[in-house]
């Protein structure tokens, strides 16, 4: 049978450096094809060539057996090939309905008709998104839903999903995979890029693995297991390092001194009467569905958002009541929040690694302390931290936007650590990060706890929460509802507590 899309000996080089070398890939009709590999393996480059975002240096692409070469994404879409990007391409100031019909407007649009059609369409896909809502007000998961709905509405025959589940909760993931199966039934072929290997194993028909710009293997998903994929991806097995507590750490750490005590914290309907304690020298894992108030609680603690003015509860840091109106004083008191949205809130993408780290120190120092900065000091700081965190970059003057996801995340972590935290809150520290970098980040988080720092890790990935944490707090409806020790925690128990 002729493949729907075939890439033959495709090479793509940037300034002579190959990002893809001689890759041959095919997508069959009615197939879900998992594409996996470390950051920088060439997955995005390959798929971008398929949808006309970039052109191949050499090699051919065939659609329905006929050679094609798309110059723009619009041209690819006319041929039924589209891509849902990790960073959504929606217009934030427009409504959901307007985004769905963007580029497909008639001369005289009847807005009410668009909204009704959008509502019907979203309902048919079981997406609970308000078509009247402005996109900027939506969370990452709902933006993703709108992006998927737009691709489906445009009658695409091939949809490429780039890390579609990175920002989804387990429940939303369940809906997403049901949708993917429905699309398949409707005759849509899917390329599915994911760092979550279980998802690829479970939902893909075939899997292709890229490493350093080369295709390592393509085979039926049933012929793979987790270890085999990781071996192919990184050339060694990391399973034990990542998600096997006994192999790495053994018994959970004992609690040290009480660092943070949160009592009856409230913020509108999002955080409601929330109480918990954080101890030094321990990793406290936090799990909850999106909207359960875990990120908002972390942001209140670190002064990014404010709790209720009346009866907002109490936060004590080392026994002293604190109420931050802006993040700066919290940073100076030793609280650091590592954001879940690194691209928007984590770094200045056009600035270098060194400049970003220097910005981190500015927040921790008193005003005026760094009026004059020596560039040699900045460089020395950057060199030290890039080495400590194994940030792979040409040098410390490399712009952060040029780094892979894992290395960007390391820069965000380094930017927080230069602030000398006593309490560090990681919000989704390994989202959109490849397995190699995940292992390094986990090791680093463990090292921080071993050094006596109070560490909080908020994660939507249950194996990560279970295996990294010394104690696990579960959020539901704006508050901590359960606490588990790693020994008694199972994915089922945690999920049950988070949902019921």
């Amino acid at each position, binding site marked *: 049978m002729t493949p729907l899309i075939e890439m033959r000996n495709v090479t793509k080089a940037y300034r002579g450096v190959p990002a893809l070398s001689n890759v041959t890939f095919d997508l069959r009709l009615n197939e879900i094809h998992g594409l996996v590999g470390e950051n920088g393996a060439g997955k995005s480059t390959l798929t971008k060539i398929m949808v006309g975002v970039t052109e191949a240096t050499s090699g051919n692409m065939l659609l329905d057996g006929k050679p094609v070469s798309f110059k723009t994404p619009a041209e690819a879409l006319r041929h039924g090939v589209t891509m849902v990007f990790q960073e959504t391409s929606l217009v934030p100031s427009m409504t959901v309905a307007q985004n769905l019909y963007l580029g497909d407007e008639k001369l005289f649009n009847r807005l009410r008709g668009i909204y009704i059609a959008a509502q019907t369409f979203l309902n048919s896909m079981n997406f609970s998104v308000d078509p009247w809502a402005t996109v900027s007000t939506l969370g990452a998961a709902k933006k993703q839903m709108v992006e998927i709905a737009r691709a489906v509405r445009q009658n695409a025959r091939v949809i490429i999903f780039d890390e579609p589940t990175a920002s989804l909760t387990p429940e939303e993931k369940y809906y997403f995979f049901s949708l993917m199966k429905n699309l398949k039934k409707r005759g849509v072929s899917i390329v599915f890029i994911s760092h979550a290997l279980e998802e690829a194993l479970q939902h893909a028909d075939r899997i292709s693995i890229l490493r350093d710009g080369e295709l390592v293997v393509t085979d039926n998903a049933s012929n793979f297991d987790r270890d085999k994929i990781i071996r192919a991806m990184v050339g060694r097995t990391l399973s034990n390092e990542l998600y096997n507590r006994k192999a790495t750490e053994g*018994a959970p750490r*004992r*609690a*040290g*001194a*009480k660092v943070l*005590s*949160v*009592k*009856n914290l409230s913020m509108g309907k999002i955080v409601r009467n929330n*109480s*918990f*304690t954080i*101890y030094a020298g321990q990793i406290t894992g936090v799990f909850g569905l999106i909207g359960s108030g875990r990120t908002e609680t972390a942001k209140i603690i670190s002064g990014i958002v404010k709790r209720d*003015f*009346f*009866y*907002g*509860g*109490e936060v*004590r840091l080392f*026994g002293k*009541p604190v*109420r931050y109106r802006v993040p700066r004083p919290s940073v100076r008191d030793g609280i650091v929040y590592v954001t879940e949205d690194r691209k928007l809130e984590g770094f200045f993408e056009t600035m270098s690694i060194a400049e970003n780290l220097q910005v981190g120190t500015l927040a921790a120092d008193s005003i005026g302390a760094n009026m004059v900065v020596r560039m040699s000091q900045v460089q020395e700081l950057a060199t030290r931290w890039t080495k400590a965190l194994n940030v792979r970059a040409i040098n410390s003057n490399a712009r952060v936007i040029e780094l892979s996801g894992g290395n960007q995340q390391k820069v965000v972590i380094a930017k927080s650590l230069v602030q000398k935290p006593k309490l560090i809150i990681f919000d989704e520290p390994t989202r959109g990060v490849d397995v190699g970098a995940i292992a390094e980040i986990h090791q680093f988080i463990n090292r921080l706890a071993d050094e006596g720092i109070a560490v909080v890790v908020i994660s939507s990935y249950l194996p990560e929460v279970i295996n990294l944490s010394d*104690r696990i*707090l579960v959020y539901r409806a704006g508050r*901590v*509802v*359960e*606490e588990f*020790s790693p020994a008694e925690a199972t994915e089922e*128990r945690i999920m*049950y*507590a988070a949902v*019921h």
Partner: protein
Amino acid sequence: MIGALSRAFDRFRGSGDAAVTIPSMDGAFRPNHKLDTASAVLEIAAPDNIGYDGRRILFTSDSALFELKLSTDPAAERIAEYEHPLASLDVHPGGAIALGLASGGITLRGGDHDGRRLDTVEGRPILCPTAVRFIDAGTLLVCLGSQRNDPTQWTRDLLDGNSSGSVWRLDIKSGKGTCLADRLAWPNGVIVPAQGRVVIAEAWRHQLIELAGGRGRPLLSDIPGYPARIAPATNGYLLAIFAPRSQLVEFVLREPRFRQRMMREVDPRFWVAPSLHHALDYREPLQSGAIKQLGELKPWAPSRSYGLIAGLDYGFDPIISFHSRADGKRHGITSCIEADGRILATSKGGNLILGVEPAREEGPVP
């Protein structure tokens, strides 16, 4: 002036002292059923003040002093009976026993000062001896919980908002004493962790403090209950916590007019206040109704009684705890010791002496 304004503003917005918050029971205080599943060593009415001198385990029940005989069939042997209820006890390895009487005064039994009675210290009557501890065979540390109420009136003292307690070092022979600290809010437990150090459990302020130079330095604050006696353990200390804190009680403590009227007009059994025992009467406030969540019975209203022992390390940081929860009956743990390879605790509310055997994986403490 600024402080008064700040307090008024706090009352207006419900922040600071007016936040009416209580610490969560998580981390080392994570609830479990270890007291509910512990073995019942002995059934006896309102046991209190358990002590161990290395040979004998002694405890009190109302006005009687008992020795606990541990064997296949544990029993209590009555050693002495007093005219008034016994409020505190300590035993010295040399054989001396110090007993605080609820009516006031301290009496010594056995040892060099057998029969010695101390009723005053530096001209002040010894009232409300909530805890006693031998520093050596001739010196005692005494916690006087209150100048206004006797030990049986502890709920009244809490609701009155008293802080008239004090801690004294007493020379048994001469009867002379030194006040180590005063204006304490119901000092209810004392321990000497090292030569020259004194640590006190201050119940109404929910903290352990170390006394130095007449002042208290908090070692463990914001305890989620009212602390009682402290005892040494293999690798740290054991702290008995006799009742839980609840937002309801904290709220009532902030409402003087309501509180005074309640104390004037309502039978003390039905006051909104912590209690040593489980609800036994339908007229008790807000104890009925519960939901079951993850197999746990969670009451609608905060429980007034609870059973809790905390294991502390040498830095007085909690590392483990043993609970009897809202649906349990082994409440009101007033004292505990480590003996016979396990923890022996008096559940005054549950009329039991409990034997808790920590799981091996929980480590050597306690």
